[in-house]
């Protein structure tokens, strides 16, 4: 395979043949001794072996054209024109989940209805309670969300604050509403994974993910 000079150092072709395991007998032994005392050539041989073995171990597979097409179709220009401008607020607070009745349901399954989910979130001194009831509307299973935003300090007035529900996967806005004078809201949404966003002065509070399958 190689045309290495018998007395000279192995060239790149020979080093690679060695790394590929193609040399045998005395030829392999000579190169083995050479790389043992020449770290830079040892690295070249080791790198070839690594790349070669990496490629050989690659058991991955290509996605179908259908899967690729779906993935390409997810993209759409950002910030579509129908998005409310308050969603572009400089700061965003992600609400922390404090309570999820589904977690409790694992140990108290008989006592908790799977048709109702209670969630409590905390964000920036506010508590957001959401009761999700599964309903049937026009032959479709949906969720009715009844929520309330409470301010721990009682210093903020939430009346008229805008809220939107967006699909988690696509950021598509599917519901818009406002908080009433008590900080409450009511929206109906389909099953899926969502983000609920509430517009405060200069801030967006995001309840995400909101998984209602």
């Amino acid at each position, binding site marked *: 395979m190689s045309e290495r000079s018998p007395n000279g150092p192995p060239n790149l072709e020979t080093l690679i043949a060695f790394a590929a395991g193609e040399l045998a007998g005395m030829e392999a032994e000579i190169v083995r001794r050479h790389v043992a005392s020449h770290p830079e*050539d040892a690295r070249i041989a080791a790198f070839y072996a690594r790349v070669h073995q990496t*490629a050989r171990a690659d058991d991955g597979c290509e996605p179908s054209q259908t899967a690729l097409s779906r993935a390409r179709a997810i993209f759409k220009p950002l910030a579509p024109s129908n998005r409310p401008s308050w969603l572009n607020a400089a700061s965003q607070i992600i609400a922390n989940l404090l309570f999820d009745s589904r977690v409790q349901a694992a140990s108290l399954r008989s006592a908790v209805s799977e048709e109702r989910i209670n969630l409590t979130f905390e964000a920036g001194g506010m508590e957001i309670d959401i009761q999700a009831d599964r309903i049937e509307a026009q032959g479709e299973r949906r969720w009715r969300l009844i929520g309330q935003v409470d301010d721990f300090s009682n210093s903020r007035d939430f009346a008229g604050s805008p809220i939107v529900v967006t699909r988690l996967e696509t950021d598509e806005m599917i519901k818009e509403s406002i908080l009433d004078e008590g900080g409450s809201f009511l929206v109906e949404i389909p099953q899926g994974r969502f983000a609920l966003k509430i517009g405060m002065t200069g801030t967006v509070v995001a309840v995400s993910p909101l998984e209602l399958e």
Partner: protein
Amino acid sequence: MHQSDPQLVQACQAGRQDAWNALVERYGRLVYSIPRRYGLSESDADDVFAAVWATVFRKLGELRDQLRLSSWLITTTHRECWRIGRRNAAYKGSDFESHFADVGSPADDKVEAWETQHLVREGLKELGGRCQELLTALFFDAARQDYEAVSAKLGVPIGSIGPTRARCFKKLAAILRDMGLEPDLSEAAGKPD
């Protein structure tokens, strides 16, 4: 011309569909392979694939400085596999569950191996031309190094495969080095062919 991940992400943020397509093309195999390795069906793997790209789209605004996109994609895909796979009773008690000692992330050695495989494939794409064809044939296609088969497939004399492989690997090594794959082969640049 090869665009870096941050360049592609920024182009996506600017609303360019072609950049998004390039991103999906670049990482499609890496993402799709994970659910299949975990034993998910083609249908579930398709769902994982769509969910991961939906997450990428949603997080585009946070990806500006995301230089470690591949490891982030691997972690995201791992979590989506768990989310989708755990709902399917067919996977209960199967090999599927063995991949989730940590639901948050796959083992480090897996992440490293998959990232390296991805880089090698991307490096070969970047190499292009006859060199890509030759190294792909030598690395991936033949079950063993079968020079006669490679010679017949590519129409090159058997005697020229070794020298050409050396020249091509030198170029590939430089590309992989630029992509961050160690070891640094700067010494190889001065190695006579």
